[in-house]
């Protein structure tokens, strides 16, 4: 039973991908991929319930025991992130289906669904994989799908951006493979559960070299400053649903891998100064970048870079409260960032431009879209009573409870960044979303495009897009409502991370408790 539950998130999207390549009618493919994601979502919830009550679960594929075969492991952290990620992936898929209906793009639709399913497979596999090499393969599946999605129907600009994105990701992937080879040469295994004790026996120099290489590799994948340069360059060029799913999932998988590997492979007791500096730099540099931007999507990409810093905040403290904060922040940010990019997509569709100074002169995108932007924007800035407030409060409490100059510096940077985020979001609100007297002279350029979008776009498609965005916004509110429950699970997941004993015994003994 648990074996089926563990295999399903990886197996089902791959099977769905195979079927969707058979050349079925479009409606059938759409239904199929939605059903696949819904089933995986239910499976994720079941895994979370099981992992929370019975501890980590492991599946040895093909019956090969842990150091030799492929092992899938689900503990509280991976099940939690899997559930949230698939939920967001489902919402974005509904949005994309709505957009496809509205814009009737036939050529790309055939590739979109299979590629999207590969992306979800890669994300699920990354959350569940129990060894370093399998993690590499999961990253590759996810990234290969993202290369296809980012260059789908690409014009010159998007090809250029896609090229930057692909070459950066490929370089980090090859470095990851180099790391796998070096770790295997040094420790004789790549199973995460075995690596902790084995790496501890190595000389300090080799150990730090491996730890730094791992940090650099995952730093590129998670867009940690100063390795973030590729992200604001490439993400904004893609269509809204693709940008949303990239922003929500890809970097978070990098953060998850960082959490998992650092706690299992290189456990430490004090504050991790290098990561703390990176976190402060990420928060400040990212948000200053966002303030300088005029393009809405690009601005949101910079806030993404900035808020990766919050996730590193908790990991840098390396205690239970800090890790709880990181886990809560990752969950909150997956939902909110996806919602923001989807709303940006809606606004760009309505106004015909993504440049803020042009939006300010054109007609506003409407009350509903404005509300759908306002709620996640406030949440991102950390205003109560939204999910961002809960996550940030946990992090700040962790920082103050930990004490010491580094922790206080982190907390101060986090507060400053929240304030600047609020400023950025207010700027976007006043120039793009707020209602204002219409000035037809300035909006002349935007109007024809808007009319075109309205005539060709089906009402049903737009309705689906709105529903998907509203669903994500409501999910963000639900996270804030269920904050107590989530904080409990998050805290237990953080304790699991700091005490990997059960994880190790489940993977190595092969008992499915």
């Amino acid at each position, binding site marked *: 039973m648990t074996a089926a539950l563990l295999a399903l998130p990886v197996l089902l999207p791959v099977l769905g991908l195979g079927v969707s390549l058979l050349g079925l009618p479009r409606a059938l493919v759409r239904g199929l991929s939605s059903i696949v994601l819904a089933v995986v979502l239910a499976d994720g919830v079941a895994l979370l319930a099981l992992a929370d009550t019975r501890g980590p679960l492991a599946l040895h594929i093909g019956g090969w025991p842990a150091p030799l075969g492929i092992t899938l492991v689900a503990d509280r952290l991976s099940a939690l992130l899997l559930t949230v990620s698939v939920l967001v992936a489902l919402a974005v898929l509904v949005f994309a289906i709505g957009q496809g209906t509205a814009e009737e793009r036939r050529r790309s639709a055939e590739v979109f669904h299979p590629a999207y399913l590969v992306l979800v497979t890669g994300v699920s596999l990354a959350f569940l994989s129990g060894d370093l090499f399998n993690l590499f393969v999961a990253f590759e599946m996810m990234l290969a799908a993202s290369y296809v999605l980012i260059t789908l129907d690409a014009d010159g600009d998007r090809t250029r951006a896609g090229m930057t994105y692909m070459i950066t990701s490929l370089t980090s992937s090859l470095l990851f493979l180099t790391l796998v080879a070096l770790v295997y040469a040094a420790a004789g295994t790549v199973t995460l559960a075995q690596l902790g004790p084995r790496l501890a026996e190595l000389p300090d120099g080799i150990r730090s070299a491996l730890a730094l290489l791992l940090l650099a590799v995952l730093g590129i994948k998670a867009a940690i400053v100063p390795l973030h340069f590729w992200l604001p360059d490439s993400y904004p060029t893609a269509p809204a649903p693709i940008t949303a799913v990239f922003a929500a999932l890809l970097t978070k998988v990098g953060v998850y891998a960082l959490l998992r590997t650092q706690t299992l492979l290189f456990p430490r007791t004090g504050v991790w100064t290098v990561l703390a500096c990176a976190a402060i730099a990420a928060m400040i540099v990212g948000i200053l970048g966002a303030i300088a931007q005029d393009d809405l999507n690009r601005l949101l990409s910079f806030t993404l870079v900035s808020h990766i810093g919050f996730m590193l905040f908790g990991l840098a403290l390396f205690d239970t409260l800090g890790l709880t904060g990181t886990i809560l922040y990752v969950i909150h940010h997956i939902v909110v960032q996806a919602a923001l990019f989807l709303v940006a997509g809606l606004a760009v569709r309505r106004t015909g431009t993504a440049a803020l100074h*042009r939006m300010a002169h054109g007609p506003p995108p409407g009350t509903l879209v404005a509300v759908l932007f306002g709620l996640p924007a406030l949440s991102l800035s950390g205003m109560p009573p939204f999910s961002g407030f809960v996550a940030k409060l946990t992090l700040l409490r962790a920082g103050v409870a930990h004490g010491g100059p580094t922790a206080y510096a982190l907390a101060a940077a986090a507060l400053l960044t929240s304030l600047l985020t609020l400023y950025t979001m207010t700027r976007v609100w006043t120039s793009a979303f707020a209602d204002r007297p219409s000035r037809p002279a300035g909006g002349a350029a935007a109007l024809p495009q808007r009319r075109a979008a309205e005539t060709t776009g089906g009402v049903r498609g737009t309705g689906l897009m709105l529903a998907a965005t509203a669903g994500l916004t409501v999910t963000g509110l639900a996270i804030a409502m269920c904050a107590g429950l989530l904080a409990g699970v998050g805290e237990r997941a953080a304790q699991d991370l700091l005490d990997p004993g059960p994880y190790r015994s489940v993977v190595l003994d092969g008992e499915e408790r």
Partner: protein
Amino acid sequence: MKTLDVTMAVVVGGLFAFGFYLMLQRSLMRIVLGFVLLGHGTNLLLLVAGGVAGRPPVLEGRTADPETVADPLPQAMALTAIVITFGLTAFLVALAHRSWRLSGHDEVRDDVEDRRIGTARERAESEAGPNRDQPDADPGREGRR
């Protein structure tokens, strides 16, 4: 302590050095070739990680000391990695070709928005006018400049 083959170390190091050198070039074709070299270097490194060369992969009909048999795990990893790098290289070449067809040359271009922010002050000084839509007029031209 495992022994290390110096030849392999030099070859892997050379492939990494040339690969990264080529990836830092401006021409897309060189970048693709750099990626290929880097991929070969990494795959060789995986094989080297498995121990010294020349051990038999399979001993038929008898069990032997694991030290005398080749380690199958890095070989399996290297095979997987070769498939992945091969597939991605094919995609990269296709993308480079499309980029060449769209832009007529195979150079990596600057990012338009970055360039715009980089030259914001100069432009403000030279224009000093209220017409704010001007910078968007021809983004393609700015990018190639």
